[in-house]
């Protein structure tokens, strides 16, 4: 879509674009192209010299068992977070969509965690489940569970999943509620007249009509887990224990900072870029399909 009513000035539009273009070029394109370039270089330990090594960084990367492990971790982490936060949010949204008086209050009470920083959310959950001083860790130990997210990789994963889900419910809830409210009442009423009970109506009418929202949220959630959960992981586990919560994004950070392997880190960045671009492309195709509706 294009405007047909426009101004005829020639120089002005360039002047208007300068601030954004300069910032984008300096702080986006320069570093992004550096990342690609660096992924073909190897620096010596002091960062004084670098030589072109072609695809060696990539070869090294894909020869690392840890890298596959981080992929698996990312996969597990994102599936758990997406599945849990989507289904819990859907449950709450269907209830809040009912015509109850307190619905607006519940809505506010549900959405505020969106505003909590991931790192802060991580600290809150760490505190509750901290093996020695956590309020909830004690009852778990009393029940005979040997709970220790600082030493047990599965426990650590469970903890960051909980924190990430807790934060993401707000977002999913909001979009599910909007999606539910955009379903015309008359369609559900027609279903009721056709003899479908509430549960049947949900699965045969509401849920299919909600599928564009669900799909959109699925992609957004995966992107969220990829990038926005960095703070949670760093605050709760620092990628440990023994790398069991090191996701791909966390590994970029950890390898570059702690290991000083900038070439390897850059190669990982490039792989991530490809994944993100693929995800975005999927999202675009979905948007296109929505237009055809």
């Amino acid at each position, binding site marked *: 879509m294009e405007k047909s009513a426009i101004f005829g000035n020639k120089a002005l539009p360039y002047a*208007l674009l300068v601030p*954004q273009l300069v910032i984008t070029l300096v702080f986006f394109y320069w570093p*992004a192209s550096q990342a690609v370039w660096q992924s073909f270089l190897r620096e010596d330990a002091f960062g004084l010299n670098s030589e072109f090594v072609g695809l060696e960084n990539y070869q090294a990367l894909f020869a690392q068992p840890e890298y596959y492990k981080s992929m698996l971790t990312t996969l597990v982490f994102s599936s758990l977070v997406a599945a849990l936060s989507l289904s819990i949010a859907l449950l709450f949204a269907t209830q809040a969509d009912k015509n109850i008086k307190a619905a607006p209050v519940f809505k506010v009470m549900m959405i505020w965690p969106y505003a909590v920083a991931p790192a802060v959310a991580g600290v809150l959950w760490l505190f509750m489940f901290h093996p020695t001083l*956590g309020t909830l860790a004690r009852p778990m130990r009393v029940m005979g569970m040997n709970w220790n997210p600082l030493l047990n990789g599965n426990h650590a994963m469970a903890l960051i999943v909980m924190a990430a889900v807790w934060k993401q419910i*707000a977002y999913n809830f909001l979009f599910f509620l909007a999606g539910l409210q955009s379903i015309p009442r008359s369609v559900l009423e027609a279903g009721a007249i056709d003899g479908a009970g509430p549960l049947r109506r949900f699965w045969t009418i509401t849920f299919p009509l909600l599928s564009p929202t669900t799909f959109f949220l699925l992609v957004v959630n995966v992107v969220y887990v990829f990038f926005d959960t960095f703070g949670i992981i*760093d605050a709760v586990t620092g990628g440990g224990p023994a790398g069991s919560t090191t996701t791909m994004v966390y590994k970029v950070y950890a390898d570059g900072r702690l290991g000083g392997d900038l070439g390897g880190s850059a190669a990982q960045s490039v792989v991530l870029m490809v994944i993100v671009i693929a995800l975005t492309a999927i999202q675009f195709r979905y948007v296109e399909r929505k237009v055809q509706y």
Partner: protein
Amino acid sequence: MVEHRRWNDIVAYLVLTLGVLLVVFPVYVALIASTHDAATVVNGNMPMLPGGHALENYYRAIFVGGSRASREPVGHMLINSFIMAMGIALGKIFISILSAYAVVYFRFPFRKTAFWIIFITLMLPVEVRIYPTYKVIADLKMLDTYGGLILPLIASATGTLLFRQFFMTIPDELLEASRIDGAGPYRFFKDTLLPLSVTTMAALFVIQFIYGWNQYLWPLLITTQDSMQTIVTGIKKMLTTTDELAEWQLAMATAILAMLPPVAVVIFMQRLFVRGLVETEK
């Protein structure tokens, strides 16, 4: 639907109340912890009711800082966070409303190119290009500066797309009427476009303020001096001592303080927040 009205409502209230409890509980625990002294918190048997050390803890957190290492008082971090969040929100509004104005209301060579240059940024969050960006900031001697904290985070297309989308909904006739009324590009922008964009700007502001305030990885990397720390990165540093030494009651007070501004923004500007969230995601 008329059927089982009462039961239906009761189920809804039950489920939602349960949900709210789940959502509120972690914050409640943090709030309680921030009112007890260190010994009570650390012994692992903290009561579930507020203690009497609230004032002391918050006072220490805000003005003094932790006792064991040379920590910054949180008051200073709050100021840094505020400057960073405001800078990101305002900076983004400023650059994106101008560029959206250019691509929507003008025709010029390379218009599409310029749009795509900006648009592509959507695909790659800062986390992906973190070290090269760090290096750019270092080369520009912008480590430990507000500019370094702010500028890389506003290099993205969300605002431009949001304004573009909004401008497209403004009827063409409004521009035509302005031209007949003798308004050029500057006057049209100032007298018509800007006043009409107020809600969109506010919605973008809310979202970007929260985004800026909650940044973690970026400030963690490029601030080396404690005096430039933001509150979200500060909490983590309070806990990176051994468990026995970590001052959890102060960390929890800090967590509460770190949540307060963005959560208040969501609650008090709920409508703008929802609008911003829904529209930036389209």
